[in-house]
């Protein structure tokens, strides 16, 4: 970092509102050439909005942008590109039906009428060689892995001459190993004089790889510091604010469960985990749900054998998966997002048909059963995209509560909805699960993410399900809501429900689960008891190394 230089980019007093929501309020940000600058904050803190303003996707309601010493109005992405500001979005902006070369050339300025494919491909090879970014220019993007797609995105930026590169949560889709090599590449680019901005919510990664860190909270800048001065306590305070910390500590003290510890060092964490392995059963044992021994929680509730399934495009997504879950057990599924987690959760829940294999729930064959039968058999499902699949955003709180039970005797008589009963139930759930809905008749799309997820959980666990499939249940939630969700899951498991818990955060899996299976490219790389494994081993399995199952 070169402090003596003027910042290449300055954002001053940026404000942006969407309807009644303020996404950015009076935000200042300075970025220097040659540095990796991290924007840290929770989901919804306004990081992405700020960067979308910088790249001209959104227009700010107020504030100024200074670039290379001049005040600039960035009205469109085109303006940003012309200035040399480019962004790799969290959802890649690639066109699957075009080749890598075509995707890159959509972005760069050689305005010839006809396409010269040979020249295009040659230029891309040169560019990828310079920063060690391996890609195949003639391949179609839909053929590429996520990591490769990310490299194409970076090459796109370099090829169009970007001086400021912005990456939105770049490590979210990568294995730990891939993420490290990606940061090495970013370092190379910073060393060559470019400014790199990385949006992240992972403190460890940011402290390790960034030069400076800016923390955003609720649309405001909480703190800015050199990475050398950052520590977990200071960052946490910035991210979540002071208010929630005592609450967290209190829970930690009163209820010594593994999930409560703030996690800092993966290695240390894993060790502690194994030390405290025996402790994990204590709450369950206290309630008499478990049978003493840790690995045997109860009888086997769910069993799937050699199950394969296809994804939405008709390509194989799950290959010969065999696993079982016991009553009272939380079974974690780790893996980089997009390696079959979605399909696995849908297959277990009954939403996706199997192409082969069989599924048993308490001995009953559900391999060919309909979704309705799965629901009746007591399988609850918290889907990955809760707002699109799990809820109907345009419908009311009450209607979402009865989404699965609208045909029950309580909700309908001879096909006619019993609105009073429905309202009573909705009211009861809202109280029991502390859901702030703003009105039982308002569309749930207007509720906050945390309350939406609580609503979803309230409905799903209401019938005391035998099996709960939860895919990324706390993703994007604020800390308070995430904690109540985890609490619900633990309560359910203590009650005797079998839980399948899918997450991409290893810390969370180690804190929550009894056993963990690792998915890579649709295959189950292995299953481990939590106390017998560590981050390194799981990380290797995530990147596709198969290890002997004990």
């Amino acid at each position, binding site marked *: 970092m070169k402090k003596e230089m003027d910042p290449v980019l300055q954002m001053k007093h940026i404000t942006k509102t969407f309807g009644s929501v303020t996404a950015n309020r009076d935000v200042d940000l300075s970025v220097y050439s040659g540095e990796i600058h991290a924007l840290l904050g929770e989901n919804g803190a306004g990081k992405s909005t700020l960067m979308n303003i910088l790249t001209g996707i959104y227009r700010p309601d107020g504030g100024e942008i200074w670039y290379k010493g001049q005040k600039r109005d960035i009205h469109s992405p085109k303006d940003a590109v012309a200035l040399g500001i480019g962004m790799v979005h969290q959802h890649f902006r690639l066109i699957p039906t075009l080749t890598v070369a075509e995707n890159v050339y959509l972005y760069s300025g050689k305005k010839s009428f006809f396409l010269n494919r040979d020249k295009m491909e040659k230029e891309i090879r040169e560019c990828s060689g310079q920063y060690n970014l391996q890609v195949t220019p003639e391949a179609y993007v839909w053929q590429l892995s996520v990591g490769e797609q990310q490299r194409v995105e970076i090459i796109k930026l370099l090829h169009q001459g970007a001086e400021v590169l912005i990456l939105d949560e770049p490590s979210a889709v990568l294995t730990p190993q891939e993420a490290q090599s990606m940061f090495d590449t970013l370092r190379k680019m910073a060393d060559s004089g470019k400014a790199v901005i990385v949006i992240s919510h992972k403190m460890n990664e940011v402290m390790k790889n960034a030069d400076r860190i800016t923390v955003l909270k609720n649309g405001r800048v909480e703190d800015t510091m050199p990475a050398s001065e950052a520590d977990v306590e200071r960052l946490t305070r910035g991210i979540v604010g002071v208010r929630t910390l005592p609450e967290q500590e209190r829970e930690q003290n009163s209820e010594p469960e593994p999930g409560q510890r703030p996690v800092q060092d993966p290695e240390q964490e894993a060790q502690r985990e194994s030390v405290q392995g025996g402790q994990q059963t204590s709450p369950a044992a206290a309630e008499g749900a478990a049978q003493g021994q840790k690995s045997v929680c109860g009888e086997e509730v769910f069993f799937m054998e050699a199950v394969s399934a296809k994804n939405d495009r008709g390509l194989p997504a799950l290959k010969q998966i065999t696993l079982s879950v016991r009553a009272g057990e939380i079974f974690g599924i780790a893996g980089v997002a997009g390696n079959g987690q979605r399909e696995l959760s849908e297959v277990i829940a009954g939403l996706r048909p199997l192409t082969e294999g069989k599924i048993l729930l308490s001995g009953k064959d559900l391999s060919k059963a*309909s979704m*309705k039968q799965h629901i009746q058999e007591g399988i609850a499902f918290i889907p990955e995209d809760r707002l699109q*699949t799990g809820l*109907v955003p345009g*419908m009311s709180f009450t*209607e979402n509560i009865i989404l*699965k039970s609208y045909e029950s005797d309580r909700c309908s008589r001879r096909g006619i*909805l019993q609105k009073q009963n429905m309202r009573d139930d909705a009211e009861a759930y809202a109280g029991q699960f502390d859901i702030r809905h703003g009105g039982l008749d308002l569309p749930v799309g207007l509720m906050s993410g945390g309350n939406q997820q609580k609503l979803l959980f309230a409905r799903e666990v209401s019938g005391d399900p035998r099996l709960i499939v939860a895919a990324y249940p706390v993703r994007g939630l604020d800390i308070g809501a995430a904690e109540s969700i985890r609490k619900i899951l633990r309560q359910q498991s203590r009650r005797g429900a079998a839980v399948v818990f899918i997450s991409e955060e290893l810390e969370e899996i180690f804190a929550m689960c009894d056993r963990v299976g690792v998915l890579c490219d649709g295959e189950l790389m292995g299953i481990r008891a939590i106390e017998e494994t560590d981050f390194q081993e799981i990380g290797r399995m995530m990147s596709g190394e198969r290890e002997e199952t004990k």
Partner: protein
Amino acid sequence: MIRNLRFRKRDSVSMARRILTPVIFVLLAFVFCGFLLAAVGSNPLAVYARMMKTVCSYSGLTRSIEAGIPLMLTGLAVSFGYRMNLNNIGADGQYALGSLFCIGFALYGPVMPAPLKILCMFLVSMLGGALAALIAAFPKAKWGVNETILTMMLNYIFLYVMDFLMYGPWKERNQMVAQTRAIREKYWLPDLGSSGINSVLLVVIAIAVLLYFFHTRTTWGFEMEVIRQSPRAAQYAGMSVAKATLLVLCASGAIAGLAGFAQVAGIIHRVQANLPNGAGYTGIVIAFLAGLNPLVVLLVGFLFGALQISAVAVQLIGVPSQVATMIQGTIMLFVVAGEFFNRYELVGRKK
């Protein structure tokens, strides 16, 4: 100045605005059509005055209702389908097949007591409409084939079927007009007292009320709404989208088929070549204008009936009767554009 204005998504839409916006844009449509009328040499004010005069009389009222009844039914049919995002533009063909089933049963079916016979006519016309829709509904439900194109193609096919029967085996003998003979008078639905309005109107109103109740108060209506808003969430909740698609499209066809029953049992008591006469397309405009609300469909259907009879009347002063279709199309275009102002508002940019 202009640069500082921009559109912003509204958080909510008030009831008044929801009603007022379409009304304003319908009026704008009439203004636009006025220019077109002037362009072909008519005096728009005179034309509109004549149209108003035609409608604003008792006989104008009854004839508007008569012309409006099939339109109400096609409007109900289209809005029922659209309540689950199914674009049934085949109401014309379903109406045709419904009327053919109805007249076929009335003329060539078994003799039975009048109430029973009328009930059976009611049912077979629904059956005809449902069958017409089924040909599109099955491929849609099973393989996801585009229902819009399918129902449209079926329109042409059923109109040819109708054409064949009207000019061929079912044609009334010794008549120039391509039509069937009238059904026996004892199978006619009575008029309401001496009002000159046929009691089939009550049937239509009953159906609209039933549909309203269906949408707002039943589990099936709930299921339809979930599927409309989010087919994925519906699957997730264990609903069968394919089954619902099949049933809803067929039911939509059955409602359109009832327009045939209304004509045969209530209004003209026979079937003529090209009886639907574009009622299916008018039904699309009606359904959309009515915001898919069955009760509002009745009102809008009546207004479009009035538009049609007044268009016939202005032929006398040299305006093509196609003016009705033109006004309908213009109204639809303007109201679609007007929707935007329900979703967005114009605000000044804050500096």
